[in-house]
């Protein structure tokens, strides 16, 4: 399988006089999981949205296989993005959401048999945890080359997080996964490469993640 490369740089995002992002470089290859860590408010979600193409900054460059894309999300089989908050219309049934995203419901059920009972349920009727899990799996199992996950482990019980890690590992065989979450242990466990987003809007590629996260004040 040909390896694909997603790269981002030249990001500049500011609101008024407040700079959010200004010195970014990120590289994700298919077959790789890349972790993105950073304190609250450093601009992780903004970075993911700019990469996805729905947020436009003062400048940005997103390239796939060295080809510049102005709105990556409009390339249907290229990438999908899991935002921090619920995004599937609450009145949509789980099976309809799966159909729309071309993800077989059996694949969700294969990883999490307990989801089987939600087949015909509306997303809005599920518990917060179940809804988050279904949405995360919808993105993760999508037939695309790259997935961007913003806090996929929030609202999930530790035992579910552990199983979700297995799904991410399996999907990373063929996809490029960019993973951002405050639960740093699963992020470090899963990631081949880790970037830290530091003020003001600068990415740092970590060589020794655990040690560097400590001395940079991200970990106690």
């Amino acid at each position, binding site marked *: 399988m040909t390896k694909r490369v997603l790269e981002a740089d030249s990001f500049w995002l500011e609101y008024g006089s407040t700079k959010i992002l200004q010195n970014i470089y990120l590289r994700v290859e298919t077959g790789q999981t890349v972790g993105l860590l950073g304190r609250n408010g450093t601009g992780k979600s903004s970075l993911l949205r700019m990469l996805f193409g729905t947020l436009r900054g003062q400048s940005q460059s997103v390239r796939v296989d060295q080809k510049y894309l102005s709105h990556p999300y409009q390339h*249907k089989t290229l990438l999908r*993005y899991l*935002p*921090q908050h*619920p*995004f*599937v*219309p609450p009145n949509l049934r789980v099976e309809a959401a799966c159909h*729309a995203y071309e993800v077989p419901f059996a694949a969700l059920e294969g990883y999490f048999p307990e989801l089987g009972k939600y087949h015909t349920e509306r997303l809005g009727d599920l518990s917060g945890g179940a809804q988050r899990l279904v949405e995360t799996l919808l*993105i993760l199992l999508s037939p695309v080359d790259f997935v961007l996950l913003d806090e996929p482990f929030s609202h999930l019980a530790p035992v579910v997080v552990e199983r979700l890690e297995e799904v991410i590992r399996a999907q990373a065989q063929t996809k490029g996964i960019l993973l951002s979450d405050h639960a740093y242990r699963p992020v470090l466990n899963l990631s081949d490469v880790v970037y830290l987003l530091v003020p003001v809007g600068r990415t740092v590629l970590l060589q020794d993640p655990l040690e560097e996260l400590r001395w940079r004040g991200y970990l106690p």
Partner: protein
Amino acid sequence: MKQQGLLIWGFYRRFGLFTILISLGAWGVVELPMGVAFVRFLPLFLLLKIATGALVWYLQRTFYPHAYFFYANLGLSERRLYLIAFGLDLLLFLAFVLLVHLTKHFV
């Protein structure tokens, strides 16, 4: 294509009843004009629709800011989504007016 149509219809349904009622209300206020009178009513009506559209967009952005990502993940831009939804809204209203006109004419 059919799947995308159904999804856009689902998006429109979130506010469609409100916008259709506004259209019918405006038409009712000016005493249900038909023919030439309807054409004269159209510019003002379109201005009202633009204002209503802006209000719907603002409310959606304020109260459901993440809902749009569902459609973005399917490759639909926000602009395209709203343009299709508002086009559909206009089409439904015009179809209704035409239906009333034909009913009056033939019955």
